[in-house]
């Protein structure tokens, strides 16, 4: 069922340092929150770990591998089909199936499709492009999340979430501010 697109999206706590963010995230996870997300202006791996992130969720490498294999096979088979069946050219009696020469374009296409799969796979798994997101409604998020502030958002969809208790919980983490984010 699609989530409701009205009312409270979540509570957004702002922190000044990555260490505070990681501590708060770990505390939230320990308190039983699961539907939450942390935001930082550069990668903070510890925060992702604190959210319960495991490398299993990162399927970019698998997509990249599949893309590469498909790209390489596609070009190699195309070359074979073109040179042996579709348009055989006899030049000085050289073999039609010149697999050594075919390796080079196949190699390039392996890289091409692996790279495209990695980049677009990363975007797709991240749910991007998504020009609108409720968090952009929070002015301090817009000003800080991409520059020098660190955020933890407890989402209202979480079964453990309650506007009053979750706010008390976040206040105990000494954030710089807490904002209610609307859809």
């Amino acid at each position, binding site marked *: 069922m699609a989530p409701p697109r009205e009312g409270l999206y979540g509570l957004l706590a702002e922190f*000044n*340092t*990555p260490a*505070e963010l990681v501590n708060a995230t770990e505390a939230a996870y320990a308190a039983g929150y699961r539907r939450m*997300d*942390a*935001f*930082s*202006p*550069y*990668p*903070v*791996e*510890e*925060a*992702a770990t604190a*959210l319960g*992130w495991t490398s299993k*969720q*990162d399927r*970019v*490498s698998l997509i*990249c591998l599949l893309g*590469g294999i498909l790209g390489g096979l596609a*070009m190699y088979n*195309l*070359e074979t089909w*073109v*040179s042996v069946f*579709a*348009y055989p*050219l006899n*030049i000085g009696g050289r073999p039609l199936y010149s697999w050594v*020469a*075919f390796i*080079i374009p196949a190699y*390039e*296409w392996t*890289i*091409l499709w*692996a*790279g*495209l799969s*990695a*980049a677009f796979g*990363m975007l797709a798994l*991240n749910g*991007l492009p*998504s*020009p609108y*997101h409720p*968090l*952009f409604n929070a002015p301090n*998020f817009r*000003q800080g*999340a*991409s*520059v*020098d502030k660190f955020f933890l958002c407890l989402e209202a969809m979480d079964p453990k979430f309650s506007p009053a208790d979750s706010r008390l919980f976040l206040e105990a983490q000494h954030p*710089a501010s807490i904002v209610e984010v609307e859809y």
Partner: protein
Amino acid sequence: MATKDIIPTPGQPPVNKAGEPDWREPRTGEYTVIAPGHTFGSITEEIVRVVLTKQTPWFWWFGFAIASGLATMLLACVTWLFLKGTGVWGITMPVAWGFAIINFVWWIGIGHAGTLISAILLLFKQSWRNSINRFAEAMTLFAVVCAGMYPIIHTGRPWLAIYWLFPYPNSMNVWPQFRSPLMWDVFAVSTYATISVVFWYVGLIPDLGTMRDKARHPVAKYAYGLLSVGWRGSVRHWMRYETASLLLAGLATPLVLSVHTVISFDFAVALMPGWHTTIFPPYFVAGAIYSGFAMVITLAIPIRKLYHLEDLITLRHIDNMAKVMLATGWIVAYGYGTEVFMAWYSASKWEYFMMWNRMFGPMGWSYAVLITCNIALPQLMWFRKLRINIPFMFVMSLIINSGMWFERFVIVVTSLYRDYLPSSWGTYKATRIDYGTFLGTWGLFTVLFFLFIRLLPMIPMSEIRMLLPGTKLSPDFPTAEVASEEAH
């Protein structure tokens, strides 16, 4: 920016109390490549201010005007070429490959340093690359644009060349010849261009998010917002982003090595004395990186000066790049040596004559220029004092760029102009259209580069943030408070 006054003079290495160069961050004691004293906020401001300003500086307009003039000349030269055919160039028998192939190899070689900096140095965890990788990658893209144009216009009628360059089902039922190095080129260069764009764009996404948040003008907000694909810096997104960056770097590394290898095959697969050698692939790749780093220095020196980015592109960058050039310069020198040795050792009189003619024939001057620019003069970079001397390094980068252009000139022209039969000997003389096209690609490159530094953040902010003290959470560091002390 409370501690910014530690830096005595911009562009000079920071000094300790005894006056010795000291690259340690005063707050944490860790070694750093950017000038000390910066915070997340100050880094962002420093980079964003270049783009998000209503005042376009005079030097931008000045350079852009000249570059646009040259790019217009390119348009005129290419139009003339299309009207008249490739006879307007100096190419003829026996030198059928003139400026077009020289410039193709030269430009694509320049591009290689961008990929080296962004991919190979990322894999080797050389964090000093963070300041220069964005514009080195942009340099790659624009150099590939210039390079890719040459083989296409060299066909004379490019709109008729598509069916034998790209395998697509056409009404003639004709398919390309995949055993030809020229086909390999098509796939190597098109893959290189695509992957370079993708790698560059993926690197830009978080910074475009910053630009979207910092922009005030509605059009800028909208444009950066669209381009940033709604990046919001979720740590889960960052994890996948880091994986994708690493994968792209891991893919770009064998790619960049393969591209110049394939280009060297254009020569090495032919049975010409001077071309048919196995040293070509490594020697071409090293030469590409050599000239590419020279080009990064040529671009970085005026940019850091004019945009006052001496804190971010520091003398350590120039110094490190000079060292890379010294190393690759010696690989190139080894390549030259091997060519001479093999000409003698092969006991083939054609090889022997080719090398003798290359050195002492009527075009021997070009070999002398090559050795002077690529081997003799760059040895001055052994001196540290000279490596961190900005005017010296600027001149040296231009010398190496010219030297590498002459390397391709020597390979293309002096191998061809006196072949097996003395009756078919000839010479090569470029025409005004050749020179106009070459200068024109310079114009096109510079126009694209000027647009890039005006419209996009030329230094990757999200990566520079990771160079700041206190961004890592390991116990050796005081805490992360230093980096954002401005906020307290």
